[in-house]
């Protein structure tokens, strides 16, 4: 059902955990729906670049694999670049997802976007302080 790449990221997830003192946090999903993802990022303020990113995920195989993949894709990217990481980009990087998983379990990029937003919101605040 899953591609080898999905299985690899599910079995050997990259960047699992939480970054310490994150600069941005994004949490999406709902345990009632079976999927919750929490993305934490560390941002190099000078370069506007994601230096570190980690995930914690409750969910099915696809949820875990997409979370892992999203962190791999985001790491080292500028925020602008990282904002281009859509669900579609993640699914493609994994060699595709089963159709029924395209939506429900492919929230990781939303989590990343939320984390970026969160960072920007905090940053904006800081600047205006």
């Amino acid at each position, binding site marked *: 059902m899953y591609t080898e790449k999905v*299985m690899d990221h599910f*079995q050997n997830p990259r960047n699992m955990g939480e970054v310490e003192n994150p600069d941005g946090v994004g949490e999406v999903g709902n*345990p*009632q729906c*079976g999927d919750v993802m929490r993305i934490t990022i560390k941002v190099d303020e000078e370069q506007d670049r994601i230096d570190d990113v980690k995930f*914690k995920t409750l969910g*099915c*195989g696809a949820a*875990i694999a997409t979370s892992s993949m999203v962190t791999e894709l985001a790491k080292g990217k500028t925020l602008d670049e990282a904002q281009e990481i859509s669900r579609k980009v993640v699914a493609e990087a994994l060699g595709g997802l089963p159709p029924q998983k395209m939506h*429900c379990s492919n929230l990781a990029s939303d989590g990343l976007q939320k984390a970026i937003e969160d960072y920007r919101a905090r940053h904006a605040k800081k600047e205006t302080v």
Partner: protein
Amino acid sequence: MKNAIFLDNAATTRADPEVIDAMEPWLSEKFGSPATLYSMGSQAKQAIDAARQSFADLIGADQKDIFFTSGATESNNWAIKGVADALESKGRHIITDVAEHHSILMPLRYLEKKGWEVTYLPTDSDGVVNPEAVAAAIRDDTVLVSIVHANHEIGTIQPITAIGKITSEKGVIFHVNAAQTVGHIPVDVNHLGVDLLSSSAHKFYGPKGVGAMYIRHGVRITPLLHGGTQEKKRRAGTHNVPGIVGMGKASEIARHSLEAEATRLAGLRNHIFDWVEGNIDDIRINGHRTERLPGNVNFSIEGIEGESIMLSLSYPTAGDARPVYVSTGSACVSGSLEPSHILLALGLPAELAHGSVRITMAKADTQEDVDYALETIAAVAERLRSMSPVYKRGNKKCSAGNSSQGCDCEAAS
């Protein structure tokens, strides 16, 4: 990959080698159709009639009341639609419960679209249907009561004999879906007081693609498959001779081994419950603790999701690990967005339904296998919980202590 441990026997079982041996000649040289007159045909006819007798003996029925089908799904569709069609003029009301198998619920939903009324009785938090609720729900226009013998997911065994008394007093046809019980626990159509009973061979070490329907003499039911004169014109189609012979052999084996095997499996089942309660925090046991299929175990592991448990178990990363095959009520596996309607019927919050694990054992499964599986499940739970953004140990949302009173966790988000 090392020898897998198959703990998903409620989905399907491995055919007994004796069953396959019995089928062989009918797959190849003895290929004649029982409908034909010449010797090949009458051999085949004798073979299916012997199988019919053997299955009848397993369920305490008269062989004249047994009709072979393609499986329990067909039998269930036949029961629901066939009785509805035959008794439409008497009334258009059917009683069932919320925790039935889809092969009962979907035919009912179909009838509802045609104007039938269906009463879906609730279950208690162990999944049990109350016979008094059945009695109370019966109306003048009720033509059928259909209750599963034992639930395929949580293993709860229903009080069929008590319900059968009520339906027979009230003169309403009683159908029992016995897909999970035939061949596993004693089933006697007269003791149970049922009018119609469905069964599938592959659920008790027989082949896939064959099942049976018991129809008590005199019960009115329209055929689902019209056509030739097979099965006394009640179920048309060239007989699946090898399949039927295989079902007969599986019935014969079950009749002799069922009791000892049920005792052994119930022992393993209770051992599992004790073990998981002692070794995994924050779980909830689903289904009735004792009125339960001997080989069925079901529990929810808080804070993690079932598909990821299943996948982790079945595709272990360590090269020398044995894959363990279980099932789950998670939405990710059900093919819909909803988790198992059966777990929800118990009052489980969705997140616990998503985190359920079903272990269903069969005769090939040993204590050693089971213990290996348990250690693996505990390790997988530990690892997935370490990845979970919501799980906090002992948050008492759903600790083992209160599990049997029904877990009252609320949406955790």
